[in-house]
């Protein structure tokens, strides 16, 4: 079954670092800490850990294990289970491609901010605090009034985007042997930067106040459905599962190598990073609250608002070393993002493409990098932020969860789960028991669909997503539908084996 000449990790630790790097991304900094604060602090962490064990780890083991078994990316895996099931592997490939197309734009913003931090372009002191929002929306994005007004591409972001894709090509085109070695550094560097940011954050007045919001347990919250929705969604989004790439990363693992223990190390390293990043984030939030004498609900503590508005506000108020903190923070975002981006492009898209069409790695990498850059130009326009938000909802929320639920269900019942368990237990450090089968068959699909129903359909169907005009909000469903149809179209293409 092993394919001659398939990419291989150069060592076990480069595989683990590549997997950790793919899992650790921007969400570890701008989503997890906020979720902890909003959903009960220490109590949320309990739900989050339960979600990790019953959903996250089995899902990741499944993707690694199936990739290694078939020595193929996601479409090849499902084609191996049944010829008519190949589309199940293609759908997340399109999800991954759309995600990486805008993810690289956010990294371009990070590069822009790293440069701007040198001169504190949004201002210092209270002027900087009041000007950070305008700097992001008016100067950096030159934001238009709505998704219907695209305007023109913003040149500095286009340049940043080109730089990101060139870096991506250089990292990917030689294959897993190289991406694994790069990932060691793209994981360690942001860890070191987070340590520096944490130390600086803790020495600022008000930091402890912020940490109290982040960590103080509110046990009553565990009785609410919201907390379990938040914990399960955080786990689903944070491990980079459901995006096709982990199948390919598993296929680069040698046949005799471990799967289970590596999946546990990857999952726990990702979660430890999230937990640690929360200290760097909430110490600054506490500092902002104290400096500006405002309550926490007046501080944007998640998403783009945290990274590109609140954090710059905090930086502008730091009495000494503000430019250094700014440069470090935005370089940290860049390094957190780059290994997730080359995971999405390489494992999520490029490997499935050369598996199917028999292209050379170098050529398929060039093709996908060019297509990713061209599609990314949409998000560099003045209306790009709106489209980023709409497409993100379609693929990063609905696409990831629905395709992940289908994949887990099919592997659990059709492959089936016991066969996978026997396969991975042959070579793994830690053996998984029969519990694993039921996680794949029932718990992972049910949890993913619970998040889709509770946090998606229940909110988006009665209202228009994001308050956008009806035609624009409809693109959430149009994007989902088009990627679904494309997955069948790609299934119908002949493979390189069929042609030969």
């Amino acid at each position, binding site marked *: 079954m092993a394919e001659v000449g398939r990419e291989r990790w150069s*060592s*076990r*630790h480069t595989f683990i670092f590549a997997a950790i790097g793919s899992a650790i991304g921007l969400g570890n900094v701008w989503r997890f800490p906020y979720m902890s604060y909003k959903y009960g*602090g*220490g109590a949320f*962490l309990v739900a989050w*850990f339960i979600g990790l064990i019953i959903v996250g780890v089995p899902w990741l083991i499944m993707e690694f294990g199936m990739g290694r078994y078939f020595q193929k990316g996601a479409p090849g895996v499902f084609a191996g289970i049944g010829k008519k099931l190949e589309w199940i592997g293609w759908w997340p490939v399109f999800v991954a491609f759309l995600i990486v197309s805008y993810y690289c734009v956010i990294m371009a913003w990070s590069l822009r901010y790293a440069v701007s931090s040198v001169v504190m372009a949004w201002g210092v002191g209270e002027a900087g605090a009041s000007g950070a929002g305008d700097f992001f929306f008016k100067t950096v994005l030159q934001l238009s009034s709505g998704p219907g007004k695209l305007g023109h591409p913003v040149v500095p972001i286009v340049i940043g985007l080109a730089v990101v894709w060139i870096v991506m090509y250089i990292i990917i085109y030689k294959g897993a042997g190289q991406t694994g070695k790069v990932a060691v550094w793209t994981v360690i560097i942001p860890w070191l930067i987070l340590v520096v940011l944490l130390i600086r954050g803790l020495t600022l007045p008000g930091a*402890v106040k912020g*940490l*109290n919001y*982040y*960590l*103080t*347990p509110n046990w009553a919250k565990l009785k609410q459905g919201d907390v379990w929705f938040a914990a399960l969604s955080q786990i689903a989004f944070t491990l980079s599962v459901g995006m096709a790439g982990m199948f390919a990363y598993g296929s680069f693992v*040698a046949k*005799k*190598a*471990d*799967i*289970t*223990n*590596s999946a*546990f*190390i990857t999952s*726990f390293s990702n*979660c*430890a990073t999230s*937990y640690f990043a929360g200290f760097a984030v909430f110490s600054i939030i506490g500092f902002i609250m104290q400096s500006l004498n405002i309550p926490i609900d007046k501080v944007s503590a998640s998403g783009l608002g945290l990274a590109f508005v609140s954090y710059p506000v905090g930086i502008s108020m730091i009495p000494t070393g503000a430019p250094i903190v700014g440069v470090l923070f935005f370089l940290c975002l860049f390094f957190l993002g780059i290994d997730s981006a080359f995971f999405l492009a390489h494992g999520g898209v490029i490997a499935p493409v050369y598996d199917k069409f028999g292209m050379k790695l170098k050529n398929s990498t060039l093709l996908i990098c060019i297509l990713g850059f061209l599609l990314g130009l949409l998000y560099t326009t003045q209306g790009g932020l709106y489209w980023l938000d709409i497409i993100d909802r379609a693929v990063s929320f609905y696409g990831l969860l629905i395709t992940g639920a289908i994949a887990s269900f099919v592997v659990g019942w059709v492959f089936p789960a016991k066969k996978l368990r026997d396969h991975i237990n042959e*070579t*793994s*450090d*830690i053996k998984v028991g029969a519990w694993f089968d039921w996680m794949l068959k029932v718990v992972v699909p049910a949890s993913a669909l619970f998040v889709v129903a509770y946090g998606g359909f229940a909110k988006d169907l009665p209202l228009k997503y994001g308050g956008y005009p009806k035609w624009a909000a409809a693109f959430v469903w149009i994007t989902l539908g088009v990627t679904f149809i494309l997955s069948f179209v790609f299934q119908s293409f002949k493979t390189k084996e069929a042609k030969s």
Partner: protein
Amino acid sequence: MNGGAIGTIIVMWVVFIGAFVFFFSKMGKGGKWED
């Protein structure tokens, strides 16, 4: 810092350190770190 937050920090450190000690102690059959 309040007691709840301090308790959370202690428990989380114990959980993470314990987990990593366990995972790395099991490493062997499926390949060493440098394999």
